[in-house]
């Protein structure tokens, strides 16, 4: 077997996940944070497919779940972007590090 193994995919998705995490914690713009979230979601979906392909090809769950993830991502993006637009109208910027009105 000279193709890539399961471990290849796992390490790749872990790296993608960590890049997404880094983006979530460092980007100051809310839309950029949302894009980082998409990276994380994709890393997870890729894991599903990889496990399905290498370990449980008989079980259709691994193939179906990425579809759900994509659906959830779509819903999340729609709602989040709507919120961002409302928020932008309200405070004229989308800088997460300037918004702390819930400070204790």
């Amino acid at each position, binding site marked *: 077997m000279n193709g890539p193994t399961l471990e290849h995919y796992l390490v790749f998705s872990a790296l993608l996940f960590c890049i997404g*995490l880094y983006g979530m*914690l460092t980007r100051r713009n809310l839309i950029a*944070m949302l894009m980082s979230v998409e990276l994380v979601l994709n890393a997870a979906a890729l894991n599903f497919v990889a496990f399905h392909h290498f370990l449980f090809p008989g079980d259709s769950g691994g193939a179906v779940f990425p579809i759900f993830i994509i659906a959830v991502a779509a819903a999340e993006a729609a709602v989040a972007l709507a919120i961002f637009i409302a928020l932008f109208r309200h405070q004229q910027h989308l800088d*997460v590090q300037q*918004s*702390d*009105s*819930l400070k*204790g």
Partner: protein
Amino acid sequence: MTGHWFIDHLWLVPLFPFLGFLLVGLVIRPLGDRPSSTVAILAMVASAVVGWGAAFQYFTHHAGETLVPWQYEWLRFSPTLVGNMGVLVDDISMLLVLVVTTISLLIHVYSQGYMRGDPGYPRFFSFLNLFTFSMLGLVLACSVLQMFIFWELVGVSSFLLIGFYWAKPSAVSACKKAFIVTRFADLGFLIGLLMLSYYAKGLDFTFLTSPETVAKLAQTTLPFLGVSALPLSAILIFCGAAGKSAMFPLHIWLPDAMEGPTPVSALIHAATMVVAGVYLVARMFPMFAASEPAILTVMSIGAFTALFAAVIAVTQFDIKRVLAYSTLSQLGYMMLALGVATLDKPLGFTASMFHLTTHACFKALLFLGAGSVIHAVHTNDMREMGGLRRKLPITHATFLIACLAIAGVPPFSGFFSKDEILAAAVENGHYFVFALALGVAGLTAFYMFRLYFMTFWSEPQDHEKYHHAHESPWSMTSVLIVLAVPTALLGLVPFGHFVHRGELEHHGINWLIAGPAILVGLAGIAVAFMLYFRPNGLPDRIAFAFSGIYRVIRDKFYIDELYLFVTHHVIFRYVSAPFNWFDRHCVDGLMDLTAQSALLSGRSLRRTVTGHLQTYLLWAWLGSAVLALVVWQMQAALGWALTFVGLGIIAGIFAWQWVLQLLNRSEPLKRIEKD
């Protein structure tokens, strides 16, 4: 069930005043003065009718028996120990029912006139009814537990009535004093009661006073003192009796209790409630008689109080205080009489009950007469009275009868009862007690006639008060007249025929005993006549000659000061203060500590709530990292370690706060307000 209607329905006797109390206090009070007093008096009339009927039926059909016509199991502590509520009928309870219902009824009538126009008029009558209910419940109690409950109830009603003029600071402190002192004494009663219930396994009087129980108790040795249970529990119960009857070390509340309205002094603090202690000892008489130390305690404390109070009474100028000390002295007489009685020669028992009855009549009369005088001249100080016989003829005549009775002049009632006490002392060989009682009789005659002459004879000292004085209304004087009848004639009743323990051989008047008693009484009267019949400087000169000892007596031997010293300088400083410190710093400190640590943890944790989205994300990440670490590799050990570290941090915060609290370095409540 005896088949005699009044005895079978004896529970109505306390019930009527109780209903009266509820009705007057809750329903009728707003309707005004007259309906209130009318209802209260009607309740007392009904109660007195049933009481008299029952007493008549008892002494004609069941004399000498002990009956329990009605009983109800109130509390079952264990299969063998049962607290009963019920009605106990024997000679002394019937006697007390007679005394209490009669005197109480008369004083209700008297108060109608005396309290007229007082803003608390309906309240006064409802309290009087409450007191009468409690006292009758106490008298009829069939178990020592029931006795204790009503014992406390009379304490409460006494408290309420002493503090009736609650706007006066002196009345407030007097009622607190009475309540605290008697309550303190009741602690002894309670402990004695518990001891009895533990060792005798029963609470009913019929059971406790039976010879078998007494013998069993006498053989029971206590595990920690090695003495038998009988004398100890008897003496503890006597503690309660001494508190209620104001025996020597616990007498301090009674003179102050004169702050209450005069009818209250007459009813509660002369005729009925204060004899409850005597009654309790008489109730438990077989127990006391079976135990030498207990009966000797009763005798010696009674004798000492009789002398002690009589000596103080000689020097007092407040008319009610003289009577209060006289009451103390006479109560000491009754205790003394019980103390000299034995099971073989129980004459003292009869004498005590006899004296209780006559004393109730003449002391109530004296107090009511004094009330009439106070009503007329609006002062308590005898030095501002004088010559009142012309202004208050009825009061004067009845007062004189009462004075003669208490001084022991034949044929008035006091002579017979006092003579019986002296005879009992001699009969049982207590010659020292006899001599002491004789001396007290002389003192009694002296101070009573000192009071009488200073008030009614001599010369008017305060002419303005004298001119405004007038005889009291009919409702008051009629009561005086009615009371004067038994005061004069009660001694002629063959008392020992009705109330006795064991077989009493016929006892006529032994002139070897009665003769000296009469002489001593007449001598006391004569001295009083010389000193006080006309105003002269002799009493002052005598007082000056013995100024040192006079001052000590006038200041009541400094017993009150001693109590104050003990409470303030010993108990407050060495007991209460450390407890207070412990409460403030350790108990409160623990509370403050809780508040402090909540505050502190809140204050430190609020810094983690930055309002920044990415901070929360970071926390979530850290949390998942910790979880991952726990699950992945080190599992249990790391979990425990983290738990311990967390708990350690919390405990550290607590401990540090506690230290701060102990050093009084933080004031959390103020800080909370500031926040």
